[in-house]
C-alpha cells in the first residue's frame, strides 16, 4: 500500500460530504470561469485596437457629428497616412432584440484602415462600386444565414425610413479578437438620401479614424488635429483607438470591477467551505493521527496525508468545474446576441487562473488541520473524543 492510496481512501471516507464539497468547488470554478469570460469579453474591443489608429470625435460628446469637410484637413497633417470615417446608423433588423453594430462608412478607405477585416478583392471592388451594398461580418452571416446577394432591410431610427442593403461582401476576422459582428455600408448612400429628406443633417460624419505612420507620435498628432479645429463650431477630441475604446467601457467599469471582485469572492467562499470540510475531517481523525504518530509516522507524513486529501478534492472539483465551463460558455455564446460580445470564449488565462485557484484552495484549506495535527501531542490525541 502506498501513502497515496491512503490519501485517496481518506478523501472519499465520507462520500456524500466529499461529493458535495467537490460539487461546491466545481460550481465555484464554473462561476469564476463565466465571470472572467464576461470580463475578458468586455475588454475584447480594447484588445482589438491598433496603436497606429487615432479616433477623432466631437469634443463635447460622441453623439454629436463632425463636418465631412474635416477629412481633407486632417489628411494634410504630417504623419497622417490615411483618414477614414464612420457614422453610427443603428436601425432595426428583424426586431429590436437583434443587436449588432451597423454603421455607414467611407467604402473607399475603410478596409485600408482596418486590414483586420478580411474581404476578397472581388467583394471589395463590388462593395466600393455599388452604392446600396453592404458588408457584414462572418458571424452575422452565420447567425442570420445570409449570403452574398441577399437584401438586408433595416428600419431606420436615427435615420428614419426603410433602408435596403444588398450584401456584397462577408468579411472574415484576421485575429481572434477581431469583431466579426459588424455591418458596414456606404456613407454616401445615406448622405445622398439625407440631402433630400433632412438637408440639415447632410454632410455629417460620426467620427474619423486616422491612420498614422508612427504610433510614438500619436500624442503630437492628436494635439495637432484638435488644435486645427479649436474655436470652431465642432471642436474635436482625438485620442488613440485604445483610449477611445476604453472610454466606452468607462460607464460600465463599476459593473466590470464588481464582476472581477465577485469572481475572487467566490474563490474565497469555496476556500472556507473546503477549509471547513478539512477541519472536520482532520478533527474526526485525531485519534488516527495519534496512532500514526505512535507507530512512527513523522510530521511530513501527516502533512502529505492531509494536504494530499485536500488537494485531491480541490483538483477533482476544479477539473470538473473547468470541464463543465467550456460547454456552458459555448451555450451562453449561442444565447447571447452576437453583437453584444463579439468574442465570447474562455481565455487560456482564465483556465490557468481557475486551475491555480483550485490548487491554492487545496493547499490553504489544509493548513489549519495540518497545524493542529502537528501540534497535537500523542497522549492528547488518544484522549480526544470526537
Amino acid at each position, binding site marked *: *500500500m*502506498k*501513502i497515496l*492510496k*491512503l490519501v485517496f*481512501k*481518506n478523501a472519499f*471516507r465520507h462520500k456524500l460530504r466529499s461529493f458535495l464539497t467537490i460539487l461546491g468547488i466545481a460550481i465555484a470554478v464554473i462561476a469564476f470561469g463565466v465571470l472572467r469570460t464576461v470580463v475578458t469579453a468586455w475588454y475584447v474591443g480594447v484588445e482589438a485596437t491598433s496603436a497606429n489608429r487615432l479616433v477623432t470625435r466631437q469634443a463635447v460628446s460622441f453623439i454629436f457629428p463632425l463636418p465631412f469637410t474635416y477629412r481633407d484637413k486632417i489628411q494634410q497633417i504630417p504623419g497622417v497616412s490615411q483618414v477614414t470615417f464612420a457614422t453610427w446608423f443603428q436601425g432595426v433588423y428583424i426586431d429590436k432584440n437583434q443587436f449588432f453594430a451597423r454603421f455607414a462608412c467611407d467604402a473607399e478607405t475603410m478596409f485600408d484602415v482596418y486590414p483586420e477585416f478580411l474581404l476578397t478583392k472581388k467583394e471589395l471592388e463590388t462593395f466600393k462600386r455599388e452604392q446600396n451594398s453592404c458588408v457584414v461580418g462572418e458571424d452575422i452571416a452565420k447567425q442570420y444565414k445570409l449570403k452574398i446577394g441577399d437584401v438586408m432591410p433595416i428600419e431606420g431610427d436615427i435615420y428614419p425610413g426603410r433602408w435596403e442593403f444588398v450584401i456584397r461582401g462577408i468579411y472574415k476576422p484576421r485575429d481572434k479578437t477581431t469583431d466579426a459582428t459588424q455591418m458596414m455600408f456606404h456613407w454616401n448612400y445615406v448622405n445622398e438620401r439625407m440631402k433630400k429628406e433632412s438637408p440639415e443633417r447632410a454632410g455629417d460624419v460620426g467620427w474619423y479614424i486616422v491612420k498614422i505612420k508612427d504610433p510614438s507620435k500619436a500624442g503630437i498628432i492628436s494635439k495637432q488635429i484638435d488644435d486645427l479645429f479649436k474655436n470652431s463650431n465642432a471642436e474635436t477630441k482625438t485620442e488613440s483607438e485604445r483610449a477611445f475604446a476604453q472610454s466606452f467601457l468607462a460607464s460600465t467599469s463599476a459593473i466590470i470591477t464588481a464582476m472581477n471582485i465577485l469572481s475572487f469572492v467566490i474563490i474565497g467562499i469555496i476556500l472556507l467551505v473546503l477549509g471547513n470540510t478539512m477541519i472536520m475531517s482532520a478533527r474526526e481523525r485525531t*485519534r*488516527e493521527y*495519534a*496512532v*500514526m*504518530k*505512535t*507507530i*512512527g*509516522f*513523522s*510530521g511530513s507524513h501527516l502533512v502529505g496525508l492531509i494536504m494530499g486529501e485536500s488537494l485531491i478534492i480541490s483538483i477533482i472539483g476544479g477539473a470538473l468545474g473547468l470541464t463543465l465551463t467550456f460547454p456552458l460558455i459555448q451555450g451562453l455564446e449561442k444565447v447571447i446576441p452576437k453583437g453584444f460580445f463579439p468574442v465570447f470564449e474562455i481565455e487560456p488565462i482564465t483556465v490557468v487562473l481557475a486551475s491555480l485557484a483550485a490548487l491554492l484552495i487545496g493547499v490553504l484549506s489544509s493548513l489549519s488541520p495540518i497545524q493542529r495535527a502537528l501540534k497535537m*501531542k*500523542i*497522549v492528547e490525541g*488518544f484522549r480526544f473524543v470526537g
Partner: protein
Amino acid sequence: MPAIIEVKNISKSYTRDSFAIPVLNNITLDIEEGEFFCLMGPSGSGKTTLLNLIAGIDKPTKGNIFIKDTDITMLNESSLAKWRANNIGFVFQFYNLIPVLTAYENVELPLMLTHLSKAEKKQHVEAALNVVGLSDRMFHYPKQLSGGQEQRVAIARAIVTDPLILVADEPTGDLDKNSATEILILLDRLNKEFKKTILMVTHDPHAAEKASKIRHLEKGDLI
C-alpha cells in the same frame, strides 16, 4: 537476563490551570528482556502514563528511561518517532484500526515507513496475520470484524515490524470474556514462543495472571 528497560527516578506531573498535578513520583523500575511484565493499579494510578513514557510517546518531567542502553528521554521528537517505529509495537484498548483500510492494509501500515520491497512487506503482513490466526480475514474491513478479531489485527500490526518491546494498554478492556482470554493466550504465546518482551497495563487480575511479573502502582508510587 539483562534489563531491557531501565526506568530511573522518573517523575511526571501535568499542569492544569497553573496547578501541577503529580502523576508519577520518582519511579525506578527494571524490566528484563523476554519478560511479560504487568503493571496493575486502579484508574488514575499512573500506569498508562508510565507505559506511555516507556513507549516514548510522552516525556517525563524528571528522570531517565533507558531502553537497551538508549536514553529515550534525550531523543527529540523526530528521533523518537524513528525509534518507536523500530523498537515498539503498540496494542491499544480500543484497537485504533484505520476504518478505511482492510486488516491487511492496517497491518501493513507500519511497514510503509520501511524500505522493504512489496513482496517482503506481503510476506511480513501475511506472517503477522497468520500468527494472530486471521489469515482468512485479511481483506476484511474493521467494521466487518468482531472486537476480538479487531484486537488481533491490532496485535498483528504491533508485531509486523518485529519490535523489541510490545506495549499493551488494557488490551482486554473492551472485550468480552472469551475474546479477552483469546487475546491473553495470544500475548502469552508471543512472549513464550516468539520471546517478545511485553509490557502490559491492566486493572483486570484475570488478565494479569498471564504475566511473569506484576507490579502495582498506587497514586503514582510503585509498590
